[in-house]
């Protein structure tokens, strides 16, 4: 059982923790507003999102485009021995630009959208049902999957799995659309069990073979770019799955898997790792699995219980999670009260930090936790912070040097000068003029903003000493350097 948090434990630190984990962090003002609301209302506002929060207007290009015709055209040119590369490149370019735009679109929603937990849960499902644009190669399908994940993020898990089994991007990613009655493809069937529902060790190779037969007949209409069912491709023979025999279909398999105790354990553990802590105790996994079953795999009440539990607010858990690269980008923009990095800068940062939206490394998604951090990614975070604070002024001016703008990870910086343009942050928003001349107050103010867990006294003293060492110089540049120093610490990587 999860223990509800006592009202007396609800305070500023708890409110900050809730915003960090159930969203992408908050400014001191937002944290104070949430604290005042009280725990119950704060959690309610996160999970009871208005129905139109999931009803997000798509980017302008996100509509079906008769991909069949496009690809036929390229193929015909190729078969005729004509130069098809130009046309193919044009299509690829477009797909590339659209994916960059889709990343921008989603980051915007995370940063300014009305439902941060809905976006965070969509990110959880994206990692769970990991699908890469590198294989799918069509931005509309990638958007469509994102939309499906968002619309079902708080809903019923079995329903979501069934929708994903009919999702074109997933069908392409795991070769389901190639599965034929004569040659059932086992890729989807295997991952459905190993990665999406019950986890390894809870099924047999025969279960994979038999269930692969039940998902035959799933097709994509390449003209409309939608799922279509082809009854003639379906294997209607009897199948035996986990001891049950009958003319089972794909949805029967999903229902059967979700009803296994292993599924609640598997999903519960993954949720707990994502929202609460890296190494959940057996007891906490059992508790969350039990609640998941009790709520019949409806995600909304499960999330409500997690974010209302004393376990979630325990001292061990607060401020102990390494920010994922996406969390880093969104939360930092919030804390700096600055626009998000430009689409290209953001995409480069995702690449260098190891989490590119719509391009997980493989079907297992991102492991997260300590795997986010190596000497290279940590140094990149520090240098990226410099860019976020000071803007493109840190990129050297002349051409030769600008090539060295690759120093902060922007390869081919010469062509990108425009695309990575950025203004320095506005310090007036962060530090009122009347405290500027008081180093300890400035440091206190900024620490409250940038760290939810107070750094060690020694570090705080370092920050103060730094300000004092710059004599009475409280010019913007000094304060920006101070913020850069604060962000260039191990502690800042935590949330």
């Amino acid at each position, binding site marked *: 059982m999860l223990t509800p948090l006592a009202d007396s434990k609800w305070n500023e630190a708890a409110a900050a923790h809730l915003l960090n984990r159930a969203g992408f962090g908050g400014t001191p003002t937002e944290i104070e507003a949430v604290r005042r609301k009280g725990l119950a209302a704060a959690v309610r506002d996160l999970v009871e999102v208005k129905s139109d929060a999931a009803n997000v207007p798509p980017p302008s290009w996100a509509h079906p485009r008769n991909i069949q015709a496009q690809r036929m055209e390229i193929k015909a040119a*190729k078969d*005729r*021995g004509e130069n*098809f*590369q130009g046309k193919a490149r044009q299509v690829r370019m477009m797909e590339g630009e659209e994916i960059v735009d889709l990343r921008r679109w989603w980051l915007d929603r995370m940063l300014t959208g009305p439902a941060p937990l809905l976006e965070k849960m969509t990110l959880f499902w994206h990692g769970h049902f990991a699908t*890469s644009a*590198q*294989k799918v190669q069509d931005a509309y399908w990638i958007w469509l999957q994102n939309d499906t994940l968002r619309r079902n993020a708080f809903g019923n898990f079995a329903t979501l799995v069934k929708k994903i089994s009919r999702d074109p991007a997933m069908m392409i990613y795991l070769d389901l659309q190639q599965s034929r009655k004569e040659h059932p493809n086992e890729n989807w069937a295997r991952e459905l069990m190993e990665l999406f529902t019950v986890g*390894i*060790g*809870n*099924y047999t*190779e025969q279960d994979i073979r038999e269930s692969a037969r039940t998902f035959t007949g799933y097709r994509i209409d390449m003209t409309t770019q939608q799922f279509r069912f082809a009854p003639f491709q379906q294997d209607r023979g009897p199948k035996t799955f986990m001891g049950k025999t009958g003319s089972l279909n794909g949805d029967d398999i999903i229902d059967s898997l979700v009803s296994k105790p292993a599924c609640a354990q598997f999903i519960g553990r993954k949720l707990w790792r994502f929202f609460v802590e890296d190494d959940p105790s057996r007891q906490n996994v059992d508790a969350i699995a039990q609640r998941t079953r009790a709520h019949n795999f409806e995600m909304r009440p499960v999330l409500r219980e997690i974010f209302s539990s004393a376990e979630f607010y325990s001292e061990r858990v607060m401020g*102990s*999670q*390494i920010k994922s690269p996406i969390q880093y980008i969104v939360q930092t923009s919030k804390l700096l009260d600055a626009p998000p990095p430009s689409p290209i800068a953001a995409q480069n940062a995702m*690449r*260098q930090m*190891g989490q590119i939206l719509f391009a997980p*490394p*493989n*079907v297992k998604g991102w*492991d997260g936790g*300590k*795997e986010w*951090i*190596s*000497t*290279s990614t*940590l*140094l990149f975070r*520090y*240098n990226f912070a*410099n860019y976020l604070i*000071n803007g493109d002024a*840190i990129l050297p001016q002349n051409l030769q040097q600008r090539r*060295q703008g*690759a*120093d*902060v*990870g922007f*390869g081919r910086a010469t062509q990108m000068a425009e695309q990575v343009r950025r203004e320095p942050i506005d310090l007036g928003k962060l530090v009122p003029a009347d405290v500027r001349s008081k180093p300890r107050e400035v440091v206190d103010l900024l620490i409250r903003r940038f760290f939810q867990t107070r750094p*060690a006294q*020694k*570090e705080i003293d*370092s920050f103060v*000493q*730094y300000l004092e*060492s*710059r004599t009475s110089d409280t010019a913007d*540049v000094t304060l*920006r*350097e101070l913020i*850069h*120093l604060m962000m*260039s*610490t*191990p*502690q800042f990587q*935590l949330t």
Partner: protein
Amino acid sequence: MLGAAATWTLPVFLEKTFFALDALAADAVTQTVTGKDGTILVVLQMAGGNDGLNMVVPYSDDAYHVARPRLRLSADKVLKIDNHIALSPKLAGLKSLYDEGHVAIVQGVGYPNPNRSHFRSTEIWQTASDADRTVSDGWLGRYFDNCCGGADPTVGVAIGEETPQAFAAKNPTGVTFSRPEQFRFRPSEPGRGQLSAEEIFFRQLNEAGVAEESGTVASNTGGSIGAIPGKAKNDLSTLDFLQRTALDAQLSSDKILAIARKYKSSVTYPQGQLAAGLNIIARMIAGGLPTRVYYASQGGFDTHAGQINTHERLMGEFNDAVTAFVADLKQQGNFERVLLLTFSEFGRRVQENANGGTDHGAAAPMFVLGGAIKPGLFGKYPSLTDLDHGDLKFNTDFRSVYGTVLDRWLKAPSEIVLGRKFPALAIV
């Protein structure tokens, strides 16, 4: 409980075996690195799918000339190795090295059930997994995890913008940079010739925590994450882990920058990304960076159309870069310590296409090059008529090459890194 045992599927078995091997590895010999005498592996990725047929040319095979009316390299131009096999005319430097006994060519390398997607096949080569299994950790990452506990983070160095998946590990080790100057903390205002105030405080903030937290360890070396045995890393608190990594980043950055400043090559390298990468690697080797594995790459091999000029240019770049690198290493007296290994995610279709290019294929040759390797031709040149969907059939699993290099060159137990033992080759 028979039921439980019966549900033990093959993957579970493999997983368990991996786990058991993992535990075993904790006791295995830890690689000691001094930077001055250990053997070094350089992995060179040819990204995009290199056309093996026009690199190592079966020039006397009629089927080659029939399948490649436009792309074929004629017998009078190629650099002959024997009566059947020759190198591309652009590989003159490599041919000399071959004649000197410094090159092994492993022919017909691939893996069962070849995948023709760049993305997936690259992943298979990087993780050394079977084609039907997805593995997250890279083969070099597993080597770092299992055999390099206690090593400096610069035990692996990748030249590029992005860490290759081959380095992915439970405990991320290794550093990645395009230019040494990039791998450092950049203050807002660069100090002119000396540390700026910001840099001085940065150093304080990124060293202090460790000494304070752990009490006993000295802040300059003892706090390094590398000093913690591999398994124990899982038990570090996240903050402690971050503090140690921060210190490591700083130490490695200092070391790399110092070497980059001190060591310049007297050999002239050609232009190009690969040459620049190999040049950095040679300088790091000269400076004694304690690195066991370097990683460099060359892109552009996806030659679906107009291949003849593109591939010639790529072969030329490859040849010139590698030749300069070898000359540099020889001059340093380090050639005996270095083994360079090439790979590409797949070869290309035997039959050329209608656009004077080739489509994604399967088996292809790998080059193994070094001052102390066993030279010659290994494996068999695959038949150009007995094909699998128009592609060459492999006869040597790429993991045999990896395994041999691990066992005999890096002296690391290959079955721990690769999950099982693959037949060794006499290349080392």
